[in-house]
């Protein structure tokens, strides 16, 4: 199952905070797509995923919109 998080118009670090708050509600292996407009997410969300043991599956950019697919890791605390 895949969920979507709308973080458009939010500036970093808010998209990261919203992603983090969403991910804690998901089970390991679940997938989440984050949609954002602040290009800062291109660095911050992958960095946040690496630190916290999640995986970035794909990143797409179309015009000002950025989509990042994440797979929730097994060790969220």
């Amino acid at each position, binding site marked *: 199952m895949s969920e979507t998080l709308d973080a458009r118009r939010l500036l970093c670090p808010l998209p990261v905070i919203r992603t983090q708050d969403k991910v804690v509600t998901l089970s390991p292996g679940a997938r989440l797509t984050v949609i954002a407009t*602040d290009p800062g997410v*291109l660095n911050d969300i992958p960095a946040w995923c690496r*630190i916290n043991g999640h995986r970035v599956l794909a990143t797409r950019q179309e015009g000002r919109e950025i989509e990042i697919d994440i797979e929730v890791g097994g060790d969220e*605390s």
Partner: protein
Amino acid sequence: MERQIKAVALISGGLDSMLAVRVMQEQGIHVEGINFFTGFCVEGHTHAIRKRDQKKPKRNNALWVAEMLGIKLHIIDIVDEYKDVLLHPKHGYGANMNPCLDCKIFMVKKALEWMEKNGFDFIITGEVVGQRPMSQRSDTMPVVANQSGAMDRLVRPLCGRNLPATLPEREGWIRREGLYDFSGRSRKPQMALARQYGFTDWASPAGGCCFLTDEAYSHKLVDLWQSRSSRDYDLDDILLLKVGRHVRPAPHFKLIVGREEGENNFLEGYRKEFIHLRCESHLGPLVLIDGDPNVEEMRLAAAIAARYSQGRMADSVEVSVHYRDGREERLTVAPLDPTQMPPEWML
């Protein structure tokens, strides 16, 4: 098997908290970081907004520090709760609108709550005695420990040897000899320790970790409160104070003038909530109007907008006014001469 001792560290993204964590890791402590988002943080925003900054790598320093240290980082949104800290600081403000002491107490208190909820044992910060005029003095450091409720579970690894022994020392979880005795404003000991650990890159925000230490920003914030006769704000208010040129010709309205493409794009996102002006006959900035000018004042606002357009030397500039209810009006005005703009209008 011995229980793994765990500490939560306040991570600002600067060098001191980075070193403090590493000192504790050296002693075998499992550390996770916590970073608070107050809305005033220097991180991110303006870089995200301003086009000319977009070439620089944008990184969130707290995340970057966490990655360098190999620790988890929990970023916590405290925008709403922080209002009370900023609006009613028991210990007052620093040189500008920065309530550093109350801010530190609040953050350590939040870290304590997090520690208890997550079964951690103590809290660490990168504070150094005598480093900052308000929150890091020898007489205010115990205030942070006491009033936050953290008491002797608050460890400052960079200056711990100058302070009374904490619980983790007495319990033998950490060794006092492994702590440091830094004090004062010199950054040399930190630099030396950074070299020793092989850190070659770190962020060093001048003044402090947030916009409240900035004089120009604080001035705009106080102006916002005065104009509303109320010391209140929401996240959009404080973000908008970071963007554009703010010009207040009268107590009941001000103009927010985009300075470049990135700012204009950002301000576009607010055009439904504000009256806004565009220059039609020339290239010019998007201008938001915060407040409700009368007819005469609207002509003045248009003349100011024209002054920042490429028609600033022209005899007349056509400006469109877009009201919140969707109405549109065209004004033809002479750009305001800079000599007619008193310096006190510029916030």
